[in-house]
């Protein structure tokens, strides 16, 4: 391991959707397994991921999502019922590939010491209270995240 090797992984999660919630947890837990420290800053719609009881109910929209294997035109994708359908399909692909559920990855991340930081400003904007969020997380602002990210870190945004 070279001396220049980054010691931290700092992730910003801005989307509260099924597809966008996975990479932060996969990468942060892998980082800790590689002897790095990891933190995820949940801001804007990413805060949804930290709400109690929400993580396994996140959805994926087929609208404006042309990489979805389910090929349907946007005009049909926007019809009622298409988002739940896409979500059910994606969950079944993930199960088939034996990818852990998001709640399992979240538990693994917490057990491994990944820092989970909920954005205070987003909470104020969206009217979210601390008791609406899961236990064992931190609440902070941009400076909290940046202080962590400013020291020898790889930074990623989702």
């Amino acid at each position, binding site marked *: *391991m070279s001396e220049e090797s980054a010691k931290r992984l700092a992730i910003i999660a801005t989307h509260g959707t099924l597809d966008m919630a996975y990479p932060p947890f996969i990468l942060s837990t*892998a980082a800790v*397994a*590689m*002897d790095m420290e990891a933190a995820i800053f949940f801001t804007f719609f990413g805060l949804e991921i930290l709400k109690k009881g929400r993580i396994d109910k996140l959805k994926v929209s087929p609208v404006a999502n042309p990489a979805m294997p389910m090929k349907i035109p946007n005009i049909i994708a926007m019809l009622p019922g298409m988002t739940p359908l896409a979500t059910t399909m994606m969950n079944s692909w993930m199960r088939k590939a*034996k990818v*852990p559920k998001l709640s399992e990855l979240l538990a693994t991340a917490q057990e491994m010491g990944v820092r989970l930081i909920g954005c205070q400003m987003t909470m104020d904007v969206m009217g979210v209270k601390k008791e609406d969020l899961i236990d064992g997380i931190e609440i902070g602002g941009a400076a909290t995240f940046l202080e962590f990210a400013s020291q020898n870190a790889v930074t990623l945004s989702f």
Partner: protein
Amino acid sequence: MSDLKPDLTLDNSGLSCPMPIIKTKKAMDGMKVGEILKMVATDPGSVSDIQAWVKKTGQELLEQEKEGEKFVFYIRKVK
């Protein structure tokens, strides 16, 4: 078949990224320096991932082999 004698065998068959790496790390944490872990995985990504993992963590990949659908890694704990 390798003639290395593992001190611990960890079967990650059927698990996908990132679980083989996470379980390997946890198993290694409970081992003593010098001991050998035999890790079995079916995730083809684990071939590249284990090589990257030993490079980053400073552990030693002694041997790797393919047995049918399974990838087998022998890793020595060096620190």
